[in-house]
């Protein structure tokens, strides 16, 4: 078993894990026609269950995975998979119908006008009874955790946020708290609020579909699965003492040292690049903060102005459809969203910590 677990640890390193998920996400969207088949989905579920079963042989995995509060995360992962399977099964079917000029499958069902009593109430009653039964079993079978009494003098290591906020805590590895804890969640909310006013595509109302809403669905699922759920998984299962990375089968060790040789963009520019270009690195200590951080300001300004202009040029139709204000809102949210994986890859590739860092104002990007 041990080589298998070693391989699992390697596979779960952040860079491999996120890259693999990204590839799996793109692959799953491309191969949706195959994956929605019952046999394919059932095989995936079986493989997942088998992997889980084998993994529980490892004491470290068994301890972390079976924490009572993590039951919610496992449920979330399973239900998300199940729901996406149901949705895409219908979407693939509907897309085929729409290509043939037919109406979506829901449209046929929608022609019937049913009495709410009994048709809808019956369904509600059955579902409510079923969920009540599940909750009762869950409450009988699994006790709510209760640790030692609160002690402000004794902080646990690691101290983790509730599971639904662990994703934000995980992003603290790559961003300052004002971005990971304030800006990103705030923009997630404003993005959701703006969504119905910015999505001008009238297609796909009242039925599952994919092909007529490719862009919207791909972006939404990318944010939901890869930027919200994936960091929760990493933060919950792959972070140990001092928030260091631990493979799922790697025992926690408080003394594990993680390399902390992160550098800022200013240093990469004034020292490394200047040495490479002119053979003479510049001393940064005496520089005014604005000059020191100028490369970062320029990079950020270009990212927030040139990229939108270029995208508007390439996707002229989209820009005209949205208009200036809506386009600005959409592109701002998209750029901030994409900045998350971009910064993560920069960290892994160049140990980059800050693009701009002005400690004078507690300001780091």
């Amino acid at each position, binding site marked *: 078993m041990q080589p298998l677990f070693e391989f699992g640890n390697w596979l779960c390193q952040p860079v491999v894990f996120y890259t693999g998920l990204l590839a799996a996400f793109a692959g799953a969207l491309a191969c949706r026609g195959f994956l929605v088949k019952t046999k394919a989905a059932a095989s995936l579920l079986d493989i997942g269950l088998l992997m889980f079963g084998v993994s529980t042989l490892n004491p470290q995995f068994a301890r972390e995975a079976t924490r009572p*509060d993590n*039951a*919610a995360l496992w*449920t979330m992962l399973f239900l998300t998979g199940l729901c996406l399977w*149901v*949705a895409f099964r219908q*979407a693939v079917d509907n897309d085929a119908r729409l290509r043939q000029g037919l109406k979506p499958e829901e*449209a046929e*069902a*929608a*022609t019937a*006008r*049913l*009495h*709410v*009593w009994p*048709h*809808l*109430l019956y*369904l*509600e009653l059955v*579902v*409510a009874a079923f*969920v009540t039964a599940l909750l*009762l079993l*869950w409450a*009988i079978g699994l*006790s*709510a955790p*209760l*640790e030692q*009494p*609160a002690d402000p003098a*004794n902080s646990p290591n690691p101290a983790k*946020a*509730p599971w639904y906020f662990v994703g*934000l805590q995980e992003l603290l590895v790559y961003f*300052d*708290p*004002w971005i*990971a*804890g*304030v*800006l990103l969640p705030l923009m997630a*909310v404003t993005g*959701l*609020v703006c969504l*119905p*006013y910015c*999505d001008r595509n*009238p297609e796909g*109302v*009242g*039925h*599952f*579909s994919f092909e007529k809403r490719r862009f919207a669905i791909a972006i939404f699922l990318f944010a939901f699965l890869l930027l919200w759920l994936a960091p929760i998984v990493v933060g919950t299962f792959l972070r140990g003492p001092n928030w260091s990375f631990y493979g799922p089968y790697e025992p926690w060790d408080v003394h594990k040292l993680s390399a902390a040789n992160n550098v800022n963009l200013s240093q990469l520019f004034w020292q490394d690049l200047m040495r490479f270009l002119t053979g003479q690195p510049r001393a940064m200590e005496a520089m005014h903060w604005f000059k020191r951080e100028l490369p970062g300001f320029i990079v950020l300004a270009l990212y927030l102005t040139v990229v939108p202009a270029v995208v508007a040029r390439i996707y002229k139709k989209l820009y005209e459809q949205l208009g200036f204000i809506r386009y600005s809102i959409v592109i701002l949210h998209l750029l901030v969203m994409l900045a998350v994986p971009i910064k993560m890859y920069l960290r892994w590739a160049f140990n980059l910590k800050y693009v701009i860092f002005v400690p*004078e104002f*507690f*300001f*780091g990007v």
Partner: protein
Amino acid sequence: MSLGDRLRKALEERVYKSAVWTSVFRHGFPDTDRNRLWAIVSNVFLHLHPTRTKGHAVRLRYTWCMGGLAFFLFLHLTITGVFLMFYYRPTPEYAYTDIVSLREDVPLGAFMRNSHRWAAHAMVIVVWLHMLRVFLTGSYKKPREFNWVVGVALLTLTLLLSFTGYLLPWDQTALWAVTVGTNMAGAHPFIGREGPGAPLLGCDDFQVIHAKSDIRFLLLCGSVVGPAALLRFYVLHCVLLPLVAGVLMAVHFWRVRKDGFSAPL
């Protein structure tokens, strides 16, 4: 006449036509079209529904029942939560021991606490999946844009409700999870003492934003997670947030009726 028929007939004669029954239910047994409509419109709870609906809307694989389940879990949490309130005092002296005695001494106490905790997690999950379903069926599009916005507010409130409840057991998990969560608030630009821009408000001798005036202090009623924070989170969790959520839910359901359930063209 079989026993079942006789029983049914007796029920109809003695119960459904009795003065008490007819004073409560103004309509006959809902086995005719007319009575089925009346069953919905003459009942304040069932009146959340329309009288009739399109065929796809009663399918589990279209709605996943997630919106209804979110409301159902909210009710479940209200009931179990009220039960827990009978036995819980939100002060550091008592909070933890009250939870222990709920588990050890109170009849059904452990069960109520467990089911409250798991239903809270379940509600977070269900609300997210509800959002996913509404997105994937394009139901947020015109004319339902505003109701989506109300839904986003309810989603945020669900997370806040869960987060404020997380502190109440007053154990190590609670204290430190909430410390981690609220520390982020201290990093809020300008209004958090560790946030960018905060030193710009004020000058060297006079700082407007400091450990006792920033947003984190407002949230915790102190500079650490202490007794005041416990009381504050308790009131938010049991009174303010559920009230706001209740009002928004009323708006949310009302708008589903007024804007119409999403349907294919």
